[in-house]
């Protein structure tokens, strides 16, 4: 009597599952939808990796050459050199300065939202942050071009020299020439990653048990002492995760950075000068090169570098969080 069918299956004890139920089509379909993401990642890695190694495999460029600081991709203008160092350095420097600006602000904002802000202030700032997230990168870039870049070039056009009484001139930073610069790129990025770092650190602060706060305050500490000595250490792994996520977003942002950075494919010299990044160069050159030529293969190698950076950061976030769960 395996096939007990009834108009009301719930009336008796559950009938033995029929064929349809045993195959469980919905479960399989849902699984396929979720697992498609694994398929996409594998496909993406395979395609980008394959294209990315063509520079070495097909074009015979020595692997060591990508660490050279010289970028001369045009074979009609003399011997080529596919040094990716200017782009990697540019990405690292621009991202680093963006993080330096954005981290204190974002963590401060997260603390404000979770520890200080009254309800009404939270209900104003949080929606504002959501709108921040939604502003497209071309709009940030356009704001950079029309407001930030002219401001930098008109306000800080003079060279800046730091002189000390006995030592003499310590260093000189040249003034902004056009305003398109490393600094402009970092400033635009710092605003773009602010919501990312803020929301992830905010979650980390909210996850701290209330007892830790009341316990600390009961000992007579001020709110700031509680934040500094209890909350920040307790949320450290969450804040680190937030910074890594912000870093990933900054390193991978293409259009907004390309629009304000000046795109000079040389090693970065000063924060006021034009530099370039991996994403900017790909954006600029991809459309102007021919499929299969070494120049374009070098761009694919750059995108492979970007992919490696982003997968590394995913692993990094996992390591940080595993440490938290372990402790």
């Amino acid at each position, binding site marked *: 009597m395996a096939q007990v069918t009834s108009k009301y299956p719930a009336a008796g004890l559950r009938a033995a599952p029929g064929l349809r139920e045993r195959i469980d089509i919905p*479960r399989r379909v849902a699984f396929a939808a979720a697992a498609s993401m694994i398929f996409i990642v594998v496909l993406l890695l395979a395609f980008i990796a394959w294209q990315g190694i063509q520079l070495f495999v097909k074009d015979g460029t020595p692997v060591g050459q990508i660490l050279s600081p010289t970028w001369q991709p045009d074979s009609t203008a003399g011997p080529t050199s596919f040094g990716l160092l200017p782009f990697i350095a540019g990405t690292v420097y621009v991202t680093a300065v963006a993080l330096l600006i954005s981290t204190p602000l974002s963590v401060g904002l997260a603390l404000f939202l979770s520890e200080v*802000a009254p309800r009404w202030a939270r209900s104003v700032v949080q929606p504002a942050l959501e709108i921040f997230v939604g502003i497209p990168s071309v709009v940030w870039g356009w704001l950079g071009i029309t407001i930030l870049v002219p401001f930098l070039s008109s306000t800080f056009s003079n060279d800046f020299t730091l002189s000390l009484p006995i030592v003499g001139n310590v260093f000189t930073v040249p003034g902004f020439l056009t305003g398109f610069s490393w600094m402009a790129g970092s400033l635009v990025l710092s605003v773009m990653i602010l919501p990312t770092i803020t929301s992830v650190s905010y979650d980390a602060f909210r996850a701290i048990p209330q007892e830790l706060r009341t316990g600390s305050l009961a000992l*007579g500490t001020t709110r700031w002492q509680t934040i500094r000595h209890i909350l920040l250490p307790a949320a450290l792994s969450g804040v680190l995760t937030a910074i890594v996520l912000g870093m990933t977003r900054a390193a991978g942002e293409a259009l907004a950075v390309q629009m304000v950075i000046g795109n000079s494919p040389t090693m970065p010299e000063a924060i006021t000068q034009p530099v370039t990044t991996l994403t900017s160069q790909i954006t600029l050159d991809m*459309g102007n090169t021919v499929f299969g030529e070494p120049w374009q293969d070098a761009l694919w190698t750059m995108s492979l570098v970007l992919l490696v950076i982003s997968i590394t950061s995913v692993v990094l976030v996992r390591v940080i969080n595993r440490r938290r769960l372990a402790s």
Partner: protein
Amino acid sequence: MTTTAGRAIGNPSGPKPSLRNKTSRGSILADRAATVALWGTGVLVILILGAIILHFALAAWGVVSLSFILSDPSETTLGGIFPVLWNSVYMLALTLLIAVPVGILGGIYMSEYAGENPITNAIRFAEESISSVPSIVVGLFGLILFVDDFHWGFSALGGALALTLFNLPLMTRLSEQALRAVPQDERSASLALGATKWQTIRHVVLPLAIPGLITSVILTAGRVFGEAAVLLFTAGVGTPPHYNFLNFDLTSVASPWSPFRPATTLSVYIYKLQSEGLGAYVNQIVDGSAAILISMVLIFNLGARYLGRVLTRRLTAV
């Protein structure tokens, strides 16, 4: 008792015994300074956002009009943005058509079926990985796969597919959260009545999760609408032709309904104009387009909030 204890610990001669009086003047000042600084960050964000909105409101003044929205592009006169706006909407619809079912199904799996096992872990890892891949790299992937290998050339479909795989993790995670927010008791009650797992999901969990699911669709839509880097090398950057909306020939490149035509969207158009536009009106056109883009983002955002709230109230009030 407590007062005497407080006096004994604190300053016995002081007129006002206070639990706080061990706190030094310096740390109180530091606390005040920190409070001011933390308020400052909140105020700063509001000021920046206010300034941006004000800036675009002023910049759009005199540019954005009905004819700006409804006419064809031109850089030598104050051209309109109609075809690119149409492409943005078309692309958004095409992307959501694919991403919403797949994303919600994925969310159903992650919330209702997935156990703690290596496969679930691999799916999560893939989800995080795609979210962290730079959009330009996703665009390049689309360039290889759809444009070159499939020989589609620059096409709306290729762009929409690239957008789909870029936003699938977001859509999946948001739907998973929406479904997880449904109380466990609802599921137990349904299963106890003899419903199968799928009947429970279909008739109990999904209806209850609808407000959350709609919010997640709108949030994804907002991101899709503004995305440009993914589309540069998949859907093309050319200035679109004049569209004839009576041309329903889906294989024709000139038909605005065809998924196999290049489709420059509003954000890509902004990027293109600012990088290579030469006409005297380029700045105004970009300002106007950016203002429209920002307004759409605002509408999507506020819409998601409003709809979510209304639907939750309606569904829970019954």
